């Protein structure tokens, strides 16, 4: 067979070589229409079964995948979705025909949208349609996908994507589809190469051997020797780059001159801990409690918070876990807690300022943290501290809560109490703060020192962490910490930027806290830094 090339849009980069497995859209057999009452019950039960399946899948998943399926759950829970179908059944249609027709109208509405994001949601609705159809006529098994196959389809429903074990390699080539679809987002997150919109009919590719270069959007069918050789070169280049980073995963971070640097994790959701090995890090440098609970009305009760903090402490297996008290306000409003309509929210009631205005909420959080400190090395970090009085006010509240918990017979331990350094006033007068540790929030420190809002593209160039004034402040805080024997860490985006790591270490920072996905590249950047060259 002759070599042939197809071109599409890159949806997720990566290389793959394999045999095409074509996924046909499954269509249930048309059922005979029974009595309207019978058909309505069949549809109701199929929807309930599809809903239950989805919820089970959501429970097993976390992060983006769970949120995307959450959309399907929400749609399926809404009676409005099936209302036209039940109307049609009332008028004599069979359950499956009524459902297919109702969903076709809904899908057409999405697919006709000019906005690509809305159009891409049509795939979610097709997925919902097919889930319910499968439950209307059980027995249609899913097509098994061989290991490492290149899945070719017109479009790939989210449920089918999730049912495939991508750890064994493989890739996705869609004749249709969209790089902004949910499946594309997940493919990027999971490192599955994916190309959309190559055109043609999926069936025409069945069984062919293909080379997929998803970064460039190119598919080579039945490759000849030259194409194979070129592909092999690409593969070895990619492998070398990934292996270069992967070898750092479990290594302690050390600079070229042998200085040990701590690399901690920033955590925003408990689900991030699933499948994450604590041994890749020195601990957790930042838990964002405002994002942990996804609650629109502030923080949950003490027990719920305690359970979450305990879970993180257990996961860390004795490594330090730094938990930041609620950091709402600024760009993270919480209805009913933060103040609406502040003319400049970044200079307003946010972070510890806000928590001190809601003492009951703060006390609940401090109690849960003091209880969790029994389970592991839990530390409390206060955001947006401006004056020593704020730290002392929280310390007094913590003392009071420790005493009251002990009086109730609850086992507690005093967690270390540290502060974030993001307000210039605190960075400049660092010697006035009697905190157990300091953590530099480089994003806010940079925006406050340069007076350049981080949410404003027009001044983005000014908001540069390498700005001399910012680096001098970071250096001064690091020197102070080293002088008084208190740890100084950095937990902003700058710590995970390989181009900034060396400068931060030169300034005296010895501990970085980064997103779990940035651990390898951060350790690699640390290894490339040489503090003897300062």
């Amino acid at each position, binding site marked *: 067979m002759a070599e042939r090339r197809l071109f599409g849009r890159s949806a997720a980069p990566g290389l793959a070589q394999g045999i095409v497995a074509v996924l046909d859209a499954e269509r249930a057999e048309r059922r005979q229409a029974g009595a309207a009452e019978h058909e309505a019950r069949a549809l109701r039960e199929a929807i309930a079964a599809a809903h239950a399946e989805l919820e089970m899948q959501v429970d097993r998943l976390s992060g983006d995948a769970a949120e995307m399926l959450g959309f399907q759950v929400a749609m399926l829970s809404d009676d409005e979705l099936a209302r036209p179908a039940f109307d049609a059944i009332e008028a004599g249609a069979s359950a499956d025909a009524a459902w297919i027709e109702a969903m076709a109208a809904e899908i057409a509405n999405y697919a006709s949208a000019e906005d690509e994001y809305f159009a891409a949601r049509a795939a979610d609705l097709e997925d919902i349609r097919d889930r319910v159809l499968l439950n209307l006529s059980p027995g249609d098994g899913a097509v098994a996908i061989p290991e490492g196959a290149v899945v070719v389809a017109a479009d790939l429903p989210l449920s089918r994507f999730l049912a495939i074990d991508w750890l064994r390699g493989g890739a996705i080539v869609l004749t249709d589809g969209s790089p902004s679809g949910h499946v594309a987002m997940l493919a990027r997150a999971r490192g599955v190469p994916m190309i959309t919109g190559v055109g043609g009919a999926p069936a025409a590719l069945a069984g062919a051997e293909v080379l997929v270069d998803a970064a460039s959007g190119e598919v080579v069918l039945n490759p000849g020797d030259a194409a194979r050789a070129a592909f092999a070169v690409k593969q070895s280049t990619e492998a070398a780059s990934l292996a270069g980073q992967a070898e750092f995963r479990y290594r302690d971070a050390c600079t070229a001159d042998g200085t040990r640097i701590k690399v901690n994790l920033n955590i925003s959701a408990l689900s991030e801990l699933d499948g994450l090995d604590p041994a890749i890090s020195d601990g957790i440098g930042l838990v964002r409690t405002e994002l942990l609970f996804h609650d629109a009305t502030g923080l949950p009760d003490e027990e719920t918070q305690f359970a979450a903090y305990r879970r993180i402490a257990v996961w860390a297996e004795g490594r330090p876990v730094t938990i930041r008290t609620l*950091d709402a306000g600024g*760009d993270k409003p919480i209805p009913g807690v933060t103040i609406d309509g502040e003319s400049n929210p970044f200079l307003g009631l946010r972070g510890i300022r806000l928590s001190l205005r809601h003492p009951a909420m703060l006390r609940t959080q401090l109690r849960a943290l003091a209880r969790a400190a029994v389970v592991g090395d839990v530390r409390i970090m206060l955001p947006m501290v401006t004056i020593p009085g704020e730290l002392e006010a929280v310390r007094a509240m913590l003392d009071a809560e420790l005493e009251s918990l002990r009086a109730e017979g609850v086992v507690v331990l005093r967690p270390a109490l540290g502060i*974030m350094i993001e307000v210039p006033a605190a960075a400049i007068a660092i010697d006035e703060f009697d905190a157990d540790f300091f953590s530099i929030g480089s994003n806010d420190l940079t925006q406050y020192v340069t007076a350049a809002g981080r949410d404003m593209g027009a001044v983005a160039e000014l908001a540069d962490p390498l700005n001399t004034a910012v680096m001098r402040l970071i250096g001064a805080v690091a020197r102070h910490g080293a002088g008084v024997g208190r740890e100084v860490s950095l937990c902003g985006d700058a710590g995970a930027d390989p181009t900034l790591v060396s400068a931060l270490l030169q300034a005296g920072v010895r501990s970085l806290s980064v997103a779990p996905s940035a651990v390898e590249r951060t350790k690699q950047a640390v290894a490339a830094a040489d503090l003897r060259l300062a």
Partner: protein
Amino acid sequence: MKDGDGMEVVTDRAELTNAVGLHARPSVKLTRLAKSFACSVEISLSAEGPWVDAKSPVKVMRVRAPRGSVLHVRASGAGAIAAAEAVMALVRDGFGEHEGGDHG
């Protein structure tokens, strides 16, 4: 904006500034928030309506409100003020989808 004591009716509006408009995840967040209030909560792309039940994800998605459009909210019944404020706060926050990762 509030019509005396008795029946509260509150309207407000805000621009959709999140990256992709009122699409899947924002719709789920919006409907979840709206459902947490007992009063009726409706949205529209125009002050004249048509008004759509903000508690129904199917109906909210049908609005297909793109980025940059102005979303109107109308709440009526007990707690309408709080409901409208909460919905507007969510919209102004870009549904918590701001770019830029770390808030460190």
